[in-house]
């Protein structure tokens, strides 16, 4: 067993939608798995281990990996492990897969994230993620706390609802270039966002992510075999996670300290001095339009309070200095257990130059970010060179 560098050799996704009426859970996941295996031209036998995850209470299935790992992914008579960490599940799965290969334990690992969210309900499920004694009675899923963060952010820094609306406009437009995206709205306008119904002030309907059903799969390979599988690889440059207090109210949520801590650590490790200049593209987990503004600050693309300005200047647009969410991001697509893994898959697609209409030119370094738990951050940087 020898330590090795790790590359993503293939990705697969379903076409994400609000309700997959035609397939059950295991059939839906199979689509993404099959696509990834086909792209890598690997047979199920070639896979050494399966890492798969979702949130147990979202579909009400305990040990879901024992089912889906066998019947949706080629895990029969192989290792199957589940990682579930809330919104960050996808990136936590991706991290597990990376360590599994980097440690030398396995050579080819299939990572799968999925959610069939409308079998239960996202808000219902998310409420159960919080403390039954202290938080659940008033908590209304993710949007309530996200709206609180938006209000705190707005009040502290004077960022405006129009600036937030522009995030939706940008990302839904980007989503139109992504065949897998759920909400593809190339002609969305700021006015349309501003006139959409208030869901949780200051969040309007179009400030919020949709609830999507879908799955995402990636295949990792160690350096020895990766080059045999493909000559177009996305190498893992570094992984880190910032976890935070048990109670979401223990610190200033809108400054997202966990992302600040983890990104500072990861940039140093990868040798990034100025993320805005050194990174070529970022896929961030923005569950609301406001969140993308806050996240770009915490991830060090600009100073605190400057997220709106960064957007206004077009820096994060396609064609800007650091395009954020060419895929359309979470504001376009949110099958929760898959969402953060889609960030990794999309970052890999960008590094490999396979983004088609959503491709950012000449991507050398891409950041994938997952958000979840009590304002946690999972990060992975992918690069063209090992």
């Amino acid at each position, binding site marked *: 067993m020898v330590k090795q560098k790790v590359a993503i050799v293939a990705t697969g996704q379903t076409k994400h939608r609000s*309700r*997959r*009426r*035609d*397939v*059950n*859970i*295991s*059939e839906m996941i*199979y689509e993404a798995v099959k696509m990834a295996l086909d792209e890598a031209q690997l047979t*199920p036998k070639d896979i050494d281990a399966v890492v798969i995850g979702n949130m147990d*209470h979202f*579909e*009400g299935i305990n040990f879901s990996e024992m089912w889906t790992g*066998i*019947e*949706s992914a*080629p895990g*029969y008579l192989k290792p199957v492990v589940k990682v579930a960490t809330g919104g960050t599940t996808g990136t936590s799965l991706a991290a597990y897969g990376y360590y599994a290969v980097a440690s030398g334990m396995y050579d080819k690992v299939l990572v799968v994230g999925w959610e*069939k969210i*409308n*079998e*239960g*309900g996202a808000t*219902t*499920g998310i409420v*159960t993620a919080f403390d*039954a*004694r202290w938080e*659940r009675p008033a908590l209304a899923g993710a949007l309530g706390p996200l709206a609180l963060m938006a209000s705190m952010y707005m009040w502290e820094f004077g960022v405006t609802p129009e600036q937030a609306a522009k995030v939706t406009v940008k990302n839904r437009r980007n989503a139109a270039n992504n065949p897998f995206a759920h909400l593809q709205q190339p002609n969305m306008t700021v006015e349309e966002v501003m006139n959409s119904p208030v869901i949780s002030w200051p969040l309007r309907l179009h400030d919020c992510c949709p609830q999507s059903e879908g799955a995402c799969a990636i295949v990792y390979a160690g350096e020895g075999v990766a080059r045999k599988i493909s000559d177009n690889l996305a190498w893992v440059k570094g992984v880190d996670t910032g976890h935070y207090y048990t109670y979401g109210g223990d610190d200033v949520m809108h400054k997202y300290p966990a992302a600040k801590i983890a990104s500072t650590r990861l940039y140093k490790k990868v040798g990034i001095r100025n993320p805005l200049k050194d990174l070529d593209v970022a896929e961030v987990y923005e569950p609301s339009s406001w969140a993308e503004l806050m996240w770009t600050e915490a991830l060090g693309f600009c100073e605190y309070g400057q997220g709106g300005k960064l957007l206004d200047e077009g820096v994060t647009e396609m064609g800007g200095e650091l395009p954020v969410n060419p895929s359309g991001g979470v504001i376009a697509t949110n099958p929760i257990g898959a969402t953060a893994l889609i960030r990794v898959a999309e970052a890999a697609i960008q590094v490999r130059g396979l983004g088609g209409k959503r491709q950012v030119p000449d991507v050398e370094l891409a950041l994938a970010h997952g958000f979840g738990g009590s304002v946690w951050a999972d990060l992975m940087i992918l690069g063209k060179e090992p």
Partner: protein
Amino acid sequence: MSEDKYFHGRIRVPYRHVAGAYAGRFIQEIGNNKRIMGVKCSRCGKVYVPPRMVCFACFEKMKEWVEVGKQGTVKGFTVVNYSTPVMPLKPPFAYGIIELDGSNTGFVHIIKEGDPKKLKVGMRVEAVFKSNPEGNILDIEYFKPV
């Protein structure tokens, strides 16, 4: 007791699971036509009852539907003598793994027999269909010894 040391909560959620083409057809055939359908793997030839889209051993999509028998052979059983809120019958009753005639997999279901002495591996059982189907696996109400 230490009950005042607890907050009594629950997770109570109504789930609606899309059955999909395989489980959907299987359960509807039972309810509507009192037929038990399996699906055959074109690669290994195994007939799966209940059906699923993918043969987990070959990792191939299966497409060929076949009707299997309403009778089968008991491969294993247990008799339960405790009760839980989700058990469909009052104990004692048996769970069995039954290989239906014409299939190659075990079908897990209930055998309405509470005395382990009256059950045997290798014995024959037959499906009893519910008169008013409700659209779930219990539209086969139970199996009875033949």
